[in-house]
């Protein structure tokens, strides 16, 4: 089983444990540790600020994959009500690694879809660790077309190591499934707000990642290939993972600078897993703001803007 906290989180967690111990002791009469507790709180906050201000690309990758990090269904629970999950691609299978359905979001009905990793080992296996087979992508597109039919906006949450590299996936057209989504999403006539909530793994993430607004949670990552894959291919050396994570420029700050996303959504200090309810509430407000803006745009104009957004992605010289 994976550690519940990361190496660089350890000193912070130790202080917090100390605070808890002191609190328990303080419950007894005649003992007052409140001054010490206050001091330790300050220390913990200082340490958190210092640690999380200067995270390396690899540390952010680890945070994005944190076993305690909120997943799609956590955000669904904290941001929406009346969620009705809809399953299946109507062709082959259920698509366990992606979940989606209608729900009420800030008083309006939306389609909310995202990759789903598992919390415990059984669920992880069932969800295939968030690595989808073609069925997941086809299901997602089916649901988005359903949203379009009923004129409901779409919220997608991205969190996957990547599309699953298995035999069955190839046999059932992994490439076609992803390509078909990219082809269809560009002209969907309802607003699509995309947020990377954890790991944005290559084509498997992008298959839900074409929309009118693209946001990243502060400690999420987005990359064309995993640092592990990149180190293995380009350095031919698996120990170069940290270097690869740095070189790929996959943090939210990097991706914003590169002009691929519109906004970074702040996370509670120490990461979304330290306060999932607060994280969801910050994200909810950001999504609501974008949906309100998009509602005011004529659908035709909105689609034209979406096309332009992706048309302009790319950096080259011409002379």
């Amino acid at each position: 089983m994976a550690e519940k906290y990361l190496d660089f989180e350890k000193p912070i967690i130790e202080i917090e444990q100390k605070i808890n111990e002191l609190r328990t002791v303080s419950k007894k009469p005649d003992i007052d540790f409140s001054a010490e507790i206050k001091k330790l709180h300050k220390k913990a906050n200082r340490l958190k600020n210092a640690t999380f201000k200067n995270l390396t690309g690899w540390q952010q990758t680890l945070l994005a994959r944190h076993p305690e990090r909120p997943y799609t269904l956590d955000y669904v629970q904290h941001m929406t009500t009346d969620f009705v999950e809809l399953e299946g691609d109507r062709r082959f299978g259920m698509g366990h690694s992606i979940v989606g359905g209608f729900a009420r979001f800030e008083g309006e009905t939306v389609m909310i879809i995202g990759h789903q990793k598992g919390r415990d080992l059984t669920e992880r296996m069932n969800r295939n660790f968030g690595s989808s087979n073609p069925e997941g992508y086809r299901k997602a597109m089916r649901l988005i077309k359903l949203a379009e039919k009923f004129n409901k906006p779409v919220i997608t949450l991205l969190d996957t190591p990547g599309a699953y590299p298995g035999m069955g996936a190839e046999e059932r057209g992994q490439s076609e499934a992803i390509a078909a989504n990219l082809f269809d999403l560009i002209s969907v006539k309802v607003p699509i707000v995309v947020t990377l909530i954890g790991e944005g793994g290559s084509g498997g993430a992008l298959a839900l990642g074409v929309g009118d607004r693209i946001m990243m949670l502060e400690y999420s990552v987005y990359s064309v290939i995993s640092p592990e894959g990149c180190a293995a291919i380009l350095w031919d050396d698996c120990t170069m993972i940290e270097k690869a994570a740095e070189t790929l420029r996959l943090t939210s700050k990097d991706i914003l600078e590169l002009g691929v996303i519109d906004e970074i959504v702040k996370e509670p200090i120490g990461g979304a897993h330290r306060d999932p309810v607060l994280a969801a509430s910050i994200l909810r407000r950001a999504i609501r703001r974008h949906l309100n803006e998009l509602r005011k745009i004529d659908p035709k104009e909105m689609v034209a803007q979406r096309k332009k957004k992706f048309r302009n992605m790319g950096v080259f010289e011409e002379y």
Partner: protein
Amino acid sequence: MSWFIRKREPKDALTVKKLKIPEGVWVKCEKCREIIYKTELENNMNVCPKCEHHHYLPAAERIQSVVDPGSFVEFDANLTPVDILNFKDSRKYTERLKTSAKKTGLKDAIISGRAYVGGMRTQIAALEFKFMGGSMGSVVGEKIVRSAERAIEEKTPLIIFACSGGARMQEGIISLMQMAKTSAAIAEMSEAGLLFISVLTNPTMGGVTASFAMLGDVIIAERDALIGFAGPRVIEQTIKKKLPEGFQRAEFMREKGMVDIVSHRKDIRPTIIRIVSLLSTP
């Protein structure tokens, strides 16, 4: 001096020298290992005359092998890649670009332009595998989009020969976005009611397969081509099993319903002519 020591040089030394094969006249087939006369191979579109194995064909020759002679006009040849990430692995991206440019005479892994095929005007593009594995970065993405836009403007079909290892890692997230960008351009063509023929050649993998390459109205796979999303090595590492013979090959993809036609290299031109002609007449 012992009686068995040779007194003279072997007589045939001179003959050996005479028989020395001049560089590059003969080549060995990758598959059947037969020695083939190089000109014969070239005249046969790099297909082995003995075993029909399809060898690598450079992008420029690929285009010449389908278009009407002398009709190809190249566009956007001056598009040049930029090292936005300042990327350096075991080598600098800029160095890799220079090496590839020297090797291929191209600025990036694609040639695109307008040509006539069977007398019909088309837009045509081919990816060059020898340029960083035919990987798709900003330049490849942009040239594909411009080809699609020209197709819409001139109301012509678009033909793309894919040959690529996937997205170009050295351009990071920007290369991933080329998947969305090129797929969107194909969607535009589709809306305009125009024909896109995608030809998958050996190999077509990763982000290229998972975007424009699988979006052809008609998809032709060249015989024996390796076509897929994940590479065979990655799959084998994931499932911890050896893949069966022929997995992800063109015939396999046809069997799985992923491509329309598996074609011998020499049949690609007549097939394209027939399709374009059928769809451009009442």
